[in-house]
């Protein structure tokens, strides 16, 4: 059974079409990287899958519905003065959507929350005010929050944003571990493909209303990207890195990828 299925999906805001005719099946255990310049509709795709944004036409289905989704939102720094610990954030991922005070099964709840915190190595700082933690520490707790609900689909919106290379690796490997152990389908929005390249099964590349789906080899080549960007784009493979040069419509991405490859 497919984890995510889109058929003839079209999303437009007014007369601005983000994508049209999108057919996409994501299998359990598959790692799909979603790439594209700012404003190409990556977050909007997540919102469609979460049922927060209706499609303009076409159909969407996610196996198990919202309860089966572990969602890591596009990073927004948490309020410094927030009265909240990492453990509370993770706990909300488990039963924050249930009515009532939740006084029953406190013990079982604690065990599950602790296990999720432990699995991302966040135990040492799980009881500190979350606003005081570093971006990498907060992001690990976000991963734990998404994992604790035992998801069959994970939607990760730029989870590597503003992390250093070591933490990029930690966070992406945590997500990869989950999909290998529990066969969870992963949609992973990122501006930097290289840190996750070894994990990626397929790529969905969105540019200005056009898109391409396929393996990294099928999509990340000069011909395909030149077609997508409608301007000459050079793709160079350097050891296990991919460099994109000259995507004028997407300087930021080129910059990221180049900087990444250089480091």
């Amino acid at each position, binding site marked *: 059974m497919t984890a995510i299925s889109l058929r003839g999906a079209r999303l437009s805001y007014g007369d601005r079409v983000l994508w049209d005719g999108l057919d996409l099946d994501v299998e359990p255990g598959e790692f799909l990287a979603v790439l594209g310049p700012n404003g190409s509709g990556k977050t909007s795709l997540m919102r469609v899958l979460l049922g927060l944004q209706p499609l303009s036409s076409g159909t969407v289905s996610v196996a198990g519905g919202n309860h089966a989704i572990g969602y890591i939102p596009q990073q927004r720094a948490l309020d410094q003065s927030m009265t*909240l610990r990492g453990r509370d954030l993770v706990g909300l991922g488990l039963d924050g*959507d249930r009515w009532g005070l*939740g006084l029953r099964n406190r013990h079982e709840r604690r065990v599950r929350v602790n296990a999720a915190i432990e699995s991302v190595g966040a135990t040492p700082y799980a*009881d500190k005010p979350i606003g005081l933690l570093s971006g990498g520490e907060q992001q690990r707790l976000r991963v734990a929050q998404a994992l604790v609900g035992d998801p069959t689909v994970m939607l990760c919106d730029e989870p590597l944003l503003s992390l250093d290379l070591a933490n990029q690796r930690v966070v992406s490997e945590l997500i990869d571990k989950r999909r290998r152990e529990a066969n969870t389908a992963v949609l992973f929005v990122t501006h930097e493909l290289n840190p996750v390249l070894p994990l990626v099964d397929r790529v969905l590349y969105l540019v200005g209303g056009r898109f391409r789906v396929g393996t990294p080899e099928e999509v990340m080549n000069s011909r395909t990207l030149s077609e997508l960007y409608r301007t000459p784009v050079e793709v160079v493979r350097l050891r296990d890195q991919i460099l994109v040069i000259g995507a004028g419509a997407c300087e930021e991405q080129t910059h990221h990828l180049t900087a990444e490859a250089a480091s």
Partner: protein
Amino acid sequence: MTLFDLLELDFVQTALIAAAVLGLVAGVLGPFIVTRKMAFAVHGTSELAFTGGAAALLLGIGVGYGALAGSIIAAVLLGVLSRRESDRDSVIGAILAFGLGMGILMLALYKGRSANKFGLLTGQIVGVDSTDLKLLVVSSVAVLAVLAFIYRPLFFASVDPDVAVSRGVPVRGLSIVFAVLVGVATALSVQVVGALLVLALMITPAAAAMRITASPLRATVLSVVFAEVAAVGGILLSLQPGLPVSALVTAVSFVIYLVCRGVGAVQRRSG
């Protein structure tokens, strides 16, 4: 009369019970209000409770019911008109100014005793009678029951709205329900400490508690304790010297706040 003689008096006892009930409700709501950055909304709602109370005086119905109606209408208006958080400040400002103006107009038209007028602004806990007390207790139980039911989703929506929405939590609906709860609690507080000083019970204790702990549960417990100390303690302190209740309630709660800021600063430096 000594303090003990005063405590024998019926109206003093009624006042103390009213204060204790209010302290509980305000203390429990407070951490949510602070987290959701609704201090100004509470202030605005309390002004409109005053407007409602003034309208009730004019119409010759119970001031308590008028205040309740005024602040619930205000809460719903705020919830509906300020769809985005960035709108909220200006929406409150606009509604508040108009409501206050209307309240003053209605008081001016009122021909009754002037003590009634003053009470709406500065509180008249010593004038709480047993019908008022009944209304207070019943509404408080209702507020706490609804809050207990929506507790987890409301907490989720307050601290992590993006993920809450993804889990199907009705974030917008909850914010209107919560605004109504705040409206009811505000209207009740208006009877005790007056429209202008509601913040002393609803905001200050929670803000103080949240200075010294990051645990939401501990913050709520402390916030209730602080609100009780301020409300009940303020009344006790006011009895003997015969000073205004509201002045002492706000003073006590402000002292607690200052102490907690100090403690919090020390904790952060050493922690």
